[in-house]
């Protein structure tokens, strides 16, 4: 009833291949898009700058990681390093006088190059071994950044990002920075939505399911793994650059350290492998929930008049948060994206549930 499929006829190829054949899906996407565009007026400035904007950028990064992890099925434990390469390259580029747009793309390309070079070595192994060798990428990057002052920006290891100039126009307002982030996030989302129905996307899925089976049917698995590494590195690099220019305004090594890699991995896994909406959910869950639980716990403690020490107060949210992650994965191992899909599947035929049997 809600997701009405009546009246959808696959009479031509265009209709058959439509991205959102069901009207309600189209409506929801439209409303979300409108909300995204109207966000500077809808949300308070705190919510816009501290929650929505970073969430969108992290969601874009999580989508990039999901490409390699969810679609191509290759572990990547060094994604934060890839983002860091993009960020450092872009910041150095702009400081050297390169226009912002080109510098950001350069950041993405540099991340791609490093990603591919590394993938050449790393892809000779599979599974857990690949996971460990990508972790090595993370540590190599950390080491290089902290030992080459020319990259890190000297002894204090912070590099100020110059003001963002889009097409020669200074962007400093909250709304302006938000739209830059939104634009990038939308671009990545549209790319990923389309990836699913291209030959590349299907090849990646074939490689993920069984790489030698893919080879038997004529899909060169090594080539597609490389393409996956390259594409996801580009997305990661640009996301890192956007993150620094719109949110951090200064780049430091710990913004892209190993625990950030783990967080990204958690975003993808909690959100759901190979799920686009799941990447959004996952980013929100991992990025925003700790702060929110923190406030909730502090508020509850205040309400109950409990006299809890600052330390305990800081640790209770950690426990709640950990329990929530385990809870989500127990309820639905495929992540939050699958939870959403379950609800949608149920509503597809609701209230005539027997029709599915």
């Amino acid at each position: 009833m809600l997701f009405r499929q009546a009246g959808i006829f696959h009479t031509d190829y265009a209709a058959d291949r439509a991205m959102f054949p069901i009207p309600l899906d189209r409506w929801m996407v439209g409303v979300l898009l409108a909300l995204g565009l109207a966000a500077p007026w809808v949300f308070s400035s705190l919510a816009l700058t501290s929650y929505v904007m970073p969430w969108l950028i992290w969601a874009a990064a999580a989508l990039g990681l999901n490409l390699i992890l969810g679609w191509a099925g290759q572990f990547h434990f060094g994604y934060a390093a890839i983002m860091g390469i993009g960020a450092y390259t872009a910041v150095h580029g702009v400081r050297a006088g390169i226009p912002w747009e080109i510098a950001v793309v350069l950041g993405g390309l540099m991340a791609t190059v490093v990603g591919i070079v590394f993938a050449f070595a790393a892809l000779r192994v599979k599974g857990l071994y690949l996971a460990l060798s990508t972790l090595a990428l993370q540590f190599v990057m950390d080491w290089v950044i902290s030992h080459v002052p020319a990259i890190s920006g000297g002894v204090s290891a912070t590099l100020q990002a110059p003001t963002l100039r889009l097409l020669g126009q200074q962007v400093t307002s909250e709304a302006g920075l938000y739209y830059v982030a939104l634009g990038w996030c939308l671009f990545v989302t549209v790319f990923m939505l389309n990836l699913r129905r291209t030959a590349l996307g299907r090849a990646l899925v074939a490689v993920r399911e069984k790489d030698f089976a893919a080879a038997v049917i004529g899909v060169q698995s090594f080539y597609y793994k490389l393409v996956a590494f390259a594409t996801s590195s580009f997305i990661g690099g640009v996301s890192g650059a956007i993150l620094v220019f719109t949110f951090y305004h200064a780049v430091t090594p710990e913004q892209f350290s190993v625990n950030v890699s783990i967080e990204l991995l958690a975003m993808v896994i909690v959100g759901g492998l190979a799920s686009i909406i799941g990447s959004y959910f996952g980013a929100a869950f991992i990025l925003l929930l700790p702060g929110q639980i923190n406030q909730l716990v502090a508020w509850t403690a205040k309400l109950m008049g409990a006299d809890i020490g600052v330390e305990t107060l800081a640790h209770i949210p950690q426990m709640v948060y950990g329990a929530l992650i385990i809870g989500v994965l127990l309820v639905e191992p495929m992540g939050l994206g699958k939870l959403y899909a379950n609800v949608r599947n149920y509503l597809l035929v609701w209230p005539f549930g027997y029709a599915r049997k």
Partner: protein
Amino acid sequence: MKKTWISTLAGAVMLLAGQAALAQKAEPVRFALCYDLSKAYTFVTPQIVQAAKDYADILNAKGGIQGHKIEIIAQDHGNEPQRGIECYEKLKREGVMIFDTLSTPVSRAVLPRVMADGNILLQSFVGRGDAIDGDVFKWIFPIGPTYWGQVANDIQYIKNYHKGSLKGVKVGFVYPDYAFGQEPIPVLKTLAATEGFELQLYPNPLPGKDQAALWTQVRRANPDWIITWNLSAMHVVAAKEMKRNGIPMDKLISVNWFNEVDINNIGAAEAKGMKRGTNVVGGQNHPLIQQILKDLYGKGKGNGDRKNLDDVYYNTGLAMYSVAFEGVRLAIKQGGWPLTPAKIKAGMESLRNFDANGLIAPVTVTAKDHGGGGKTRIDMWDGTKWTPQSDWISAYGDVVEKVIKEQSAEFAKTSK
């Protein structure tokens, strides 16, 4: 009917006005402590929050700062830059003007925003050292010595020990191999060149729990002095390895981050003879701590475990907030209420020879120098307590100044 409506409205207006007046009278001075209370900095943050709250209670009992109560807002950011930013952005919108992050990553992440918004960021002992250049970092107050200053003072102590000449003296520098540990190296290298001592660098990889290879090297090279930039548990590892390699404890000069917890983990007797660069007086003999013990903990009104008071980091917290409260007191005295960041800045910059009643070396903050003089001294653990080995010194001002100016000029250039 209309009359009642008007009188209700008038009543409401009067009530609101009354509340506003009341609010203004009792409006507190608020300090935002966006701290890492759950991850990397937990070895120091709880004590500092406790000290700040205790001292605020003591002052509030006397009527607060110039009649305004002090409110300490402590919030956890888990050492994650984005959550530190969230804490700053949220409290900034609630009207808080004074922030303290006590975490280098978060301090670095918040700094560009603080500079753009013109709020006050306290960052004693963390964050970028060049922020003491008040000309460039107008809103940042890292009151206390920089690490560059501290290491220069350590070298001065060694020089005094060797009767004024460092020729032929070997100084080893043991540090965790990331930005915090690498920071003093430029100053050490410059001093090694000018003073003629031999500098040996011993990096240990993070997380610093394995220092076996490093200390064997130290034994082989046998330096006369070892300066370490270790933190919390790394001290214990270092002490164990030193004992194993037969390196005497009295060669060791640690960075200021060395507290009673570390001493207990090493063993009070084992740690005898080791030295520490000190920026705040340890122990409980200070009159303020005695007062806190009597008025708060004696009556069961302390803001945490009484055990934490026997910790030099508690004294550090007291020192940081003595300075901050005094700065705000001067600000209200000079500029009156309501406070603005500009008034607080002016207040902080008029601190003259303030030593928190002997708790710290006297600091004099000016518009140019937000550090306050950079004095430290060397304390030695004598088996039961810290005993001072030198006066408060501030050495090699020109060398330290040069590093600071280089760095801050770089910041000034790029933040345009």
